[in-house]
Structures are given as C-alpha cells and as structure tokens.
C-alpha cells in the first residue's frame, strides 16, 4: 500500500526515513515515521513534508530527555537529528564554534579541548546532543561562573514549523542586531521549530583547578557556608551540594584559574569552610548528575540565594511529613537545585511533597518544576506549576506553529 508521507520523507532525506517501531515511541506515544536527515537542507525538506502532510513531530537527538515534559498530544514523525552532526566552524582565535544540532556535546568538547578551549556547559546526561541541550536548556555546576546555554549561544539556525530555514544572531559574541531568537528557542522544548545549528562563545580551559569538599550539618550551616564563599574574593566556578536522603549534606566548591591563583584561592576557601575541608583536584562522583534514580521523580527547584536553606529544609522534612525520602543536589551558589523522589513513590505522596516544595520555592521567589516522572504520575500531577506570562507564551506558539504540530503538549500549559 502506498504511503505518501513516507515516500515524501524518503525523497526529502535521500532515503533516510522509515516507518517507526515501538522503540521510537516518545514518552509512551507511538510515532508513524522516523526521518534522519543528514544535512540542514534535508532537515528543512523533511519539516516541509511534515507541514504539507499535517504531521505532528518531535525532534530527537540522543534521546536522553524524551521522558521530560508532557507526552506529545499527537505524534506522527520523530525527527532524528543524530545524522545532523559535525563542527561547521571552530575559530579558536575568536573563541567561537558553530556546530550542527545532532553533534554530541561531549564530541564537541573533545574537539575544542585539543585547542585548549571548551563550551562551558556541564552535561548532566552523558551523550546529550547540542540541539537537545539547547532545546531543554540543561545546565550544571559551572553555570555559576559561565552561565547557561542562553548565555553561551550567540547564533542559531532553525527550521520553522512551515519548513523555512532561518537564523538569528551570528557568530560574533557582541551583536544586538534584531531580536535574540536564540534565547526564545533555548529551553523551548522543541515547540517552536527544529534547531539545526548553533553558534557558541567558547572559553579557555583553565590551567589549574581545585575542589574543596566538606560535610555540613543541615540546611542552615550549608546556607551559611555557601554565603560565606559567595561573599569572599575566591570567585568560585561552582558551589555545589549533595544532600542524599537521610544522610549528611556534602558541599563542594570548584575553583579554576592559573596555578598560583588557584593555590591562593583554595587556601582562602579552606579557611572559610573550616578544618573539616578536604582539598583536592577531583570532583565528587555525584558532580553534575541528577539525584533521581531510573523510574523516580525528578524535580528542578529554583530559589533566590538567601532562600536556598528554606528549600533544603522543606526537602529534608519530607520523610517525616510524607514518608518520602527526598534527595537534593545542585548549585546552591546559583539558586538551582534538583530533587529526586525514589522509584515507586505513590501519587498522593508525590503530590504532597511537590506541594511543599512549591510552597518553599515560591517563598524564595522560585519554582518547582517536575522534569521527569513515571507515566502514571506524570499524567496526574501539574508538572510546571504556575507560569507567569502563559497567555503571551501561547501567542508566541500560535505565531510560530499555528497548527500546533511541533511537540504539542510537551511544554508549559500544554503548549
């Protein structure tokens, strides 16, 4: 039986399209087709086919975050970017790189390291691609010093839902010509278009690093020490903590710089943190990883810096209040933490813990967003919480994707 969309996708991608299998389901929703364009032009052609045939699509890189956000409301096409790879340009003298979206971030990192440079983005989920990292805006410990994808992205090329290839920004770090659509696309969960190429500003790899670690006794002491490090002149690249359920909190501070400077700053930081401090060069094994197990619930918690202890305290109270062991980890020095609930946590308990965390983060000017959860929980809890400006966001979506074919339902408010 002829399959017109598949034939068109095969033509658009030079044969790189196929019927979907069960393994291609996104968040449990089966797809009909998979297209794997090998070039930017083929990606645009595939999206045009989707537009012509009214296909709903979800972009997939390495697939590390397919369980994040809501399940797609409808799904016809998985647009696989893993053949859309390669560093298009690395101009070391300009500290910039242009890279195709399907390139694994780690692969880019290896190329840049050869020139003593880096894309200063931590990778909480190994294997993640550039496109997926930008589309979901994941970040890690060093965001404190380098910022996040929105701060490092200087140009973007995307395929609009109608199949038109456009770009915004450029490949120079300083540029205020036109709207910064790169920021709009960063963290948009694939709902506004297909990211095909990104230009980033780079940083030099540090010549020396030091890692200082110590255990602390509870949220108040953690907050006090984090504040002391932030207020000192040691310029940390990261101030992290790990609070496993039912165990002591560990603090870890990363310093980067020239050898003489790092030695000096490590000594100053050790004085602030106290005699229990261990100074080394290796980051702890929990570094830059999320604190939830497979099948658990992952929640992102944000807070003003002064509100971090209150958020930690709310998580620490969960076993007593709701019988749930909540592990917390993250960038205490930047006001971004992640909470993990064990696999098998029930719906009522999840909702109760989430309510406590939402109250605590709201009190600290932040949010509690469920990044990932098992299907039964995901369908029953409010993943995003209150969203300021949702009406305007819907209008943005309406302008870019009037037929709601790009990752429908994956994002805030069912966008």
């Amino acid at each position, binding site marked *: 039986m002829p399959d017109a969309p598949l034939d068109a996708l095969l033509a658009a991608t030079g044969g790189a399209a196929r019927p979907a299998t069960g393994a291609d389901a996104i968040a449990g929703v089966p797809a009909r087709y998979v297209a794997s364009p090998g070039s930017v032009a083929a990606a645009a052609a595939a999206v045009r086919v989707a537009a012509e045939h009214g296909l709903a699509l979800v972009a997939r890189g390495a697939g590390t975050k397919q369980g994040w956000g809501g399940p797609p409301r409808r799904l016809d096409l998985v647009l696989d970017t893993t053949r859309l790879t390669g560093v298009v340009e690395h*101009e*070391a*003298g300009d*500290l*910039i790189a242009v890279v195709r979206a399907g390139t694994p971030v780690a692969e880019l990192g290896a190329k840049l390291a050869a020139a003593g440079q880096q894309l200063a983005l931590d990778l909480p989920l190994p294997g993640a691609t550039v496109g997926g990292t930008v589309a979901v*805006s994941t970040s890690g410990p060093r965001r404190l010093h380098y910022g*996040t994808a929105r701060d490092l992205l200087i140009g973007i090329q995307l395929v609009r839902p109608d199949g*038109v290839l*456009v*770009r*915004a920004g*450029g*490949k*120079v770090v*300083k*540029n*205020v*010509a*036109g*709207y*910064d*659509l790169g*920021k*709009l696309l*960063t*963290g*948009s969960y694939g709902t*506004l278009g297909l990211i095909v190429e990104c230009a980033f500003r780079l940083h*030099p790899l540090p*010549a020396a690093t030091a890692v200082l670690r110590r255990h602390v006794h509870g949220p108040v002491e953690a907050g006090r020490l984090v504040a002391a490090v*932030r*207020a000192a*002149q*040691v*310029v940390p690249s990261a101030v992290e903590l790990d609070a496993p359920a039912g165990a002591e909190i560990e603090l870890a501070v990363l310093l980067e*710089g*020239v050898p*003489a*400077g*790092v030695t*000096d*700053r490590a000594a100053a930081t050790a004085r602030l943190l106290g005699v229990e401090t261990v100074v080394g060069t290796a980051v702890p094994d929990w570094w830059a990883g999320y604190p939830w197990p497979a099948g658990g619930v992952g929640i992102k918690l*944000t807070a*003003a*810096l002064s*509100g971090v202890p209150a958020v930690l305290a709310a998580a620490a109270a969960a076993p007593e209040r709701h019988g749930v062991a909540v592990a917390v980890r993250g960038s205490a020095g*930047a006001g*971004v933490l992640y909470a993990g609930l064990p696999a098998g946590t029930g719906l009522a308990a999840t909702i109760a813990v989430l309510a406590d965390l939402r109250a605590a*983060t709201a009190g*600290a000017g*932040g*949010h509690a967003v469920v990044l990932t959860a098992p299907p039964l929980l995901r369908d029953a809890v409010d993943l995003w919480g209150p969203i300021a*400006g949702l009406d*305007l*966001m819907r209008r*943005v979506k309406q*302008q*870019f994707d009037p037929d709601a074919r790009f990752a429908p339902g994956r*994002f*805030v408010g069912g966008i």
Partner: protein
Amino acid sequence: MPTPTPSTMDNVPAGSAASTVDSPAVSTVDKTGAVIARLAARLRAELGTAQVISDRQELRTYECDGLAQYRVIPALVVLPRTGVECAATVRACAAAGVPFVARGSGTGLSGGALPHAEGVLIVTSRLRDIVEVAPDDERAVLEPGVINLAVTTAATPYGYYYAPDPSSQQICSIGGNVAENSGGAHCLKYGFTTNHVLGAEIVTPEGDLLRLGGRAPDAPGYDLLGAFVGSEGTLGIAVEVTVRLVRLPETVRTLLAGFPGTDAAGAATSAIIGAGVVPAAVEMMDALAIEAAEAAVHCGYPAGAGAVLIVELDGPAAEVDAQFEQVEALCRANGAGEIRIAADPAERALIWRGRKSAFAAVGRISPDYLVQDGVIPRTALPRVLRRIAEISAERGVRVANVFHAGDGNLHPLVLFDAAVPGQAAAAEETSAAILALCIEAGGSITGEHGVGVDKMKYMPDMYSTDDLTTMQLLRCAFDPAGLANPGKLFPTPRLCGEAPGRRGPHPLAGAGLAEVF
C-alpha cells in the same frame, strides 16, 4: 563620562523613516489631532495635568535622543510616576490606536527613542527609585529611570556592583539599557545587559502589567525576558527591572601600552586572548583617536604611538598578578614600546580618561563626526583596519578608530565638516562602507548601539527576508496592533493580521509603511 551628542548634524542626509512620518497628509493631521486631544484629556484625568505635555515648545525638547540627526516632535509627552501609570498610558494609547515610544535618558545612539510624530513619547525619568538592594541574593530591584551608575553606587557599600558599563553610564537609564541590551568596555568578561537582567515587570503593548523572570533563575516557560531585552522598545516597556549584582573584584590592574601601529596592537590582543587570559577589558585607539584625546583631556598617552592598547584585568589578587605579568610580556613581544602600569586608582582613571573621552574629543579636531558601531570577528581585526584605512584614503574622509578590541566591536569615528558641501554625504558613505566591511567579515551591523531608525536599512544585508519575518512573529505575539515603537528595527514592518478589538486603520498601514502580512 557623559555620552557625546554629535554636534550639528541636521544637514546629514537622513533618508530615514522619520522624514516619512513627519509629513502626513493634512486630513490625517486633523484626524490625528482630534485623537491626540482626546487621549491627552484622558491621560490628564488619569495621571494628572502635570504628567502630560502638549505644549509645542516643551515637546520640542524631546525631539531627538543621542543620535541628533534624526528629529521628530512627538504629538504628546507623558511622564508616568509609577508602573501603574505607565500601564494606564499604554492602555490609553492602545484604546485610541495611537503609537507610543518609550524614552529613558535619551542617550541612545541609534535613534531608538526617536519620537513618533503622531504618537506619545512615554518618558520614564520619573520612575527613578532603587526599590531594593539585596546583597544576600546578589540582586537589585530598580525602576527603569534609575541611572546605570547609581546601581553600582548603591551596591558598593555592600561590596557589589552592576557590571554592564556603557560609556554613558553616568546618565543613561536602566530601562534604556534593557531596551538596547547595552554593553560597555567590560562586557568582554562580564557579558551584556541581557546576562545581568534576571527579571522585569513590563507593560505589554496592550497595556497589561506582566512579570517575567524574577529573583530566582530559570523561570519555566519561554524565555520571554531574554527576547524582551534588546528589543528596542518594540515589545513593551520595562517598569521594574531585577538585575544581578557582581562582587567587586579584589584587585583591578590596568596597563596602557603604546604600539607602532594597529597591526601590532591587534596582534598583541590576539596573543593575550590566545594565551587563555580573559581580561576585563581590552580597548584600542589609533593615532588619530590618540591625537584627539590628547587635545581634549591631556591624558599623556605615549608620544608618537600609532596605537595604544588599554588592558585591564580584575579578580583575585594572586590570579590577576600572575596573568598581568603574562599580558605585559605579550605586549612587549608584539612590539609595545612604552608600557604604563597604573599604580593607583588615580592613574587608572587617567588611563581610562583618554579612552572614555575619545568620542567627545574628536569634536575638538573635527566640526562634525559620525559614530559607527560594527562588530567583526577578532581575528579579522588587522585586515579590516587596513581596509578602513584604504576606504578613508580613497574617499578623503578621516576616520579615527576607537574600539573594544577584545570582542571585535569597532567604533570608527568618521570626521567631516557639514559646512563644506559634499562632506556630510561622503562621511555617510564612508560609514556605510565600513559597515559593509563588518558584514562581509562575518560580523554584525551593531554591537551595542542598536538598530533603531539608523540601521534599519542595513538589516537586510545581515539577515534574509525570512529571518526578519521570523523575528516579527515575536513582534506579532507581543504587539499585534504594531503600536510599540513602530518604524524602528525592521525595514519592512509586517502586519499581524486582524488584531482583536482594534479600531480604525492600522497606524503603519495608514502611514503607508507596511503591507498586510
């Protein structure tokens, strides 16, 4: 230092949107006059008589911003005292279908705050409260009329400062900084306004108050705040801004190095960046710019230098000391003659005085000048500077070069005498040729001054029609009626289809400026 206002430049052929909107048909004027009169009455009732200016002479004081060759007298000026009053003003404009333009201190250099002849100019200078300085959160909450430098002044007692430092920082406002995504000499290390704004309360073009972002990072949903910053007043007006405060550095060290020419200074810059040093600032001036600065402020730059480089490092003392030695050695290795190291804050200020006065100083050696703002990849610096020199020689137009060498942001100053026939046009052409050079080198038509009215015509040289149309999708989401600062940023405004609740002809269509999209 205050932003220099280019002196008498009325004779420069503008070819701008301003001249188009300045001469509407007579019947439109009468109709507009009645609409504006009703709007003025409503605003006087809602805000008070003193907040609304309609006297022609008073209106004239607002006819231009820092780019004085474009002048338009607004139909009405409103001076809201609160965010709520600002929202009321925008709501009244929206109801009447009248365009509005926001203005902070009016120091912008691209005509972004140029008034609309049939519109309302909303001036934020009375929204001048520092709402809160919260060092524990490393945040400050500000009204949009707060002066940039005042934020640092307020935060310094706590050991913090506000990093973005446009050269107009003594008089420019935070609201204007947000609209333009302002940079400054130190954005090489610290980033631009957009990297330092965590939250804002905005008035949407329909007059609604809306909070975007906040004191905590990563608000869920689209990064509308990221899109808003730098949108040049076309997506609404910020009435409260939450910014990041940065810890004052332990040490700041500054050196001034004289080089035989810009090639050597450029090579030194590349060597410093290539060595993995991230200076707080790297600034370059060429011989003509040095001559002007000397004449104006006697900054004592090395005599006979073909170029000077100012390199500033800041941070922890041990870190800065080690890298400062490296920078000094790299300058010498690349041909630096005299190197002067600031021994104290006074000497540091002296080094910076020459650089910061450069724009105004050029007024001493030339009756008139144009300030250009283009960006090139840093590695293209020697090639582009040689080409600028050739363009200058070919056209017989003098060009002084002052720029942020670290990030490739050029500010060529094109000198001319408007009293001499043909010179203004030659200067304009030279300036345009330099911009074309920036685009060809893979750079940008503006690094920090914005597009405004001045550079709309160059947008199609940098972006395709599809690129520009896509940007305007965002515009249509925020401002379907096209009332927020129309006639700026985009050379070909697109209409957004039927806007709900809007009455009368679309202002852009009425002015013959737009086609229906």
